[in-house]
C-alpha cells in the first residue's frame, strides 16, 4: 500500500493550529471581558454583538488552522 500510512503533523504546525483554535475558545469563555453594555452597535449592547462577531472570527480562525494543517500534510506527502 503506497502512501497509506500518513505521519503525525510536524510539532510547529500542530502548536500553531492549536493556538489558532484556542483563541476563540478563550475569547468566549472568559466572560468578564465582554459582559458589559457599551459600546453599543446598532442598538446591540456590547455583550451581544461581541459574541455574534465571534461567530465570524471563530470560523476564520478555524479555517486558518485547516489551511495550515492541509499545507503541512501536502508538503509531507510531496517529500516522500
Amino acid at each position, binding site marked *: *500500500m503506497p*502512501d*497509506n*500510512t*500518513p*505521519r*503525525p*503533523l510536524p510539532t510547529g504546525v500542530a502548536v500553531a493550529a*492549536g493556538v489558532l*483554535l*484556542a483563541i*476563540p*475558545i478563550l475569547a*468566549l*469563555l*472568559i*466572560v*468578564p471581558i465582554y*459582559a*458589559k*453594555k457599551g459600546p*453599543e452597535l*446598532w*442598538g*446591540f*449592547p456590547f*455583550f*451581544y454583538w461581541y*459574541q*455574534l462577531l*465571534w*461567530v*465570524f472570527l*471563530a*470560523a476564520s*480562525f*478555524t*479555517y486558518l*488552522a*485547516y489551511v495550515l*494543517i*492541509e499545507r503541512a500534510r501536502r508538503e509531507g506527502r510531496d517529500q516522500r
Partner: protein
Amino acid sequence: MSVVAAGSGTKVDGVALTVLLIFFVIVTVGGFMAAKWRRPESMHSLDEWGLGGRVFGTIITWFLLGGDLYTAYTFVAVPAAMFATGAVSGFFAVPYTIVVYPLIFIFMPRLWSVAHRNGYVTPADFVRGRYGSRGLSLAVAVTGILATMPYIALQLVGIQAVLDTLGLGGSSNVLLKDLPLFIAFAVLAAYTYSSGLRAPALIAFVKDTLIYLVIVVAIVYVGIKIGFGDMFKAAETKMSTKTPKGAATGVFIPNSKTYWAYSSLAFGSALALFMYPHSMTAVLSGKSRNVIRRNAAILPVYSLMLGLLALLGYAAIAAKTKVIGADGKPNAQLAVPHFFHDAFPSWFAGVAFAAIAIGALVPAAIMSIAAANLFTRNIYREYFKPDATPHEESTVSKIVSLIVKFGALLFVLSLDKQNAINFQLLGGVWILQTIVAIVAGLYTRWLHRWALLAGWAVGMVYGTVAAYHQKSAATAHFGGSLAKFPFTHTTVYIGLSALVLNVIVSVVLTLILRAAHVPTGEDATAPADYYSDSVPAVRPVPGTAGGLPEPGAARA
C-alpha cells in the same frame, strides 16, 4: 370545552395549517424517497442504514450536521429561555455553539480515522476496541441512549409548541390533545425505519432553506418594526423587574455572580454536544477527515442563525407577545411561534411553523438512529447475539429506533415543559460523563478501564442527584441545571462539576490500579489508526453488497 376558549389560539388557523401540511407532505415524500438516493445494493447493514454508506461529502455533511445540531432547542427552547429569564439561561447557547467547533476540529478527525479503520459505528464501539472492556463500552452505550431521550423529547416539545399555536391540541381529552403530535411522530418513525440516515440528510436541505429564509425575514422585520435598541431596552426592563419574591426576573448581561454559570454552561454544553451519539453519527457518515475539518470552519454560520433566533425571544418581549397556551396556561415555549403568528400573515407564519416542525423532525430522526445503533452494536450484539449478521443488525436497529422515540414521549409526559431547555441540559449532564473515556482514549491508553468506569459512575450519580434537587417555579425536581460547585459558593453547570469529579476519580484510581498491576485490557487499535485518512484494508470494495467491515476482526 371552555378550556379551549380561554387560550389565545381559540380557532384553528386554516391558512397556516395548510402551509404547514404542504411542507410536511413534501418532507414525508422526500423521507421515503431518500431510500433510493445514491442507492446502495443493499440497505441491510448499519453502514448503509445507520451511516448512509459513509460517503457524505462536505456539503451534505454540512446540511446534515447543521440539521442535526441545531434543533428545536435552537428554534424554540433557547428563545423561550431568553424570553423568560434572559442571557444566562438562553444566550449562552451562542458561545456554546461557537466553542464547539474548534473542539470538533481537534478531536473528531481522530475519532473518524480510528472508526473508519476499525469499522466502528458508535462511540461505544471505539471504547470497546480501545480499552478491551465490555463494561465500559456498555456504560458508554447506555449513557448515550439515556441522554438522547430527553433531547428527542425536546424536539417533541418544539412540535407541540407549533401545533398549540395553530390552535390544535387544545382539547382537554388527553388522547385527542396529543394526536397531531403522535401522527407527526409516527410518520417520522416510518420513514426513518425505511430510509435510515439518508432520510434526515435529504430533509435537512428543506429544513435549512426554510429556517434561513424565516430568520432573515424575521430579523429585517424586527429591525424595521421594533428597532434593535428598543428590543434590547424592553428585554433589559423585563429582566431587571423584580418578581414577587424580590429577585430579578432574569439576567440581561451576566455580572460577577453569574460569570461562571454562563461560561460553564457554554463550555460544558460544547463538550457534551459532540459526545452525543447523533453528532458522532453525522461525523462518521462523512467520507474523509477533511470533510469534518472543513465543516468545523463553515458550520458556525448556523450559530449566527441561532444567535439571531435567540434574540427573537427578546423581540417577543418587546412585541408584548402573549404566551398563553391553548390549555389556558402560560408557556414560554410559545414565545417564538406566537411572535410569528402575531407579527406575520398566516401563510408566512405557516412557513415559519413548518421550519420549526421540520427542524425538530430531522434531529429526532438522527438521534433515534444513533441511539438504535448503540443498542444494536453494544448491547444486542455484545450480549445477546455476538454472531449477528449485518442484516440482523440493521433490522434490530430499525425496531429500536421506534422504541427510543416512545421513550422520548415518556420524558415529555414526566418533565416540566416550561423549562424544556433543561431536557437538553440534563441529557448533557449524562453524556458529558462519557467524554473522559472517549476523548482521553483518542490520545492515550494511560487511564485504566476500571478507573474510567468508576469515574463515570461517580459523575452520573452526582449529576443526576444534583439535578434532581433543583427546584423551579413549576417543578420540585429537575427544574434547572445550575448548582453550587461542591464546597464552594460558585454556581456552575452541574454537568461540568460532575465531569470534574469524574476526571479526579479516574486519575486517582488509575494511579492505584496501575500501582497494583491490575490488567489494563487489550487495545485493538494501532497508533497509525488515529491520523489515517486512507481506506483501510478491511473496507469493502464499493458496490459489494453487505460487505460490512468486520469489527470482530479488529477486536480479536
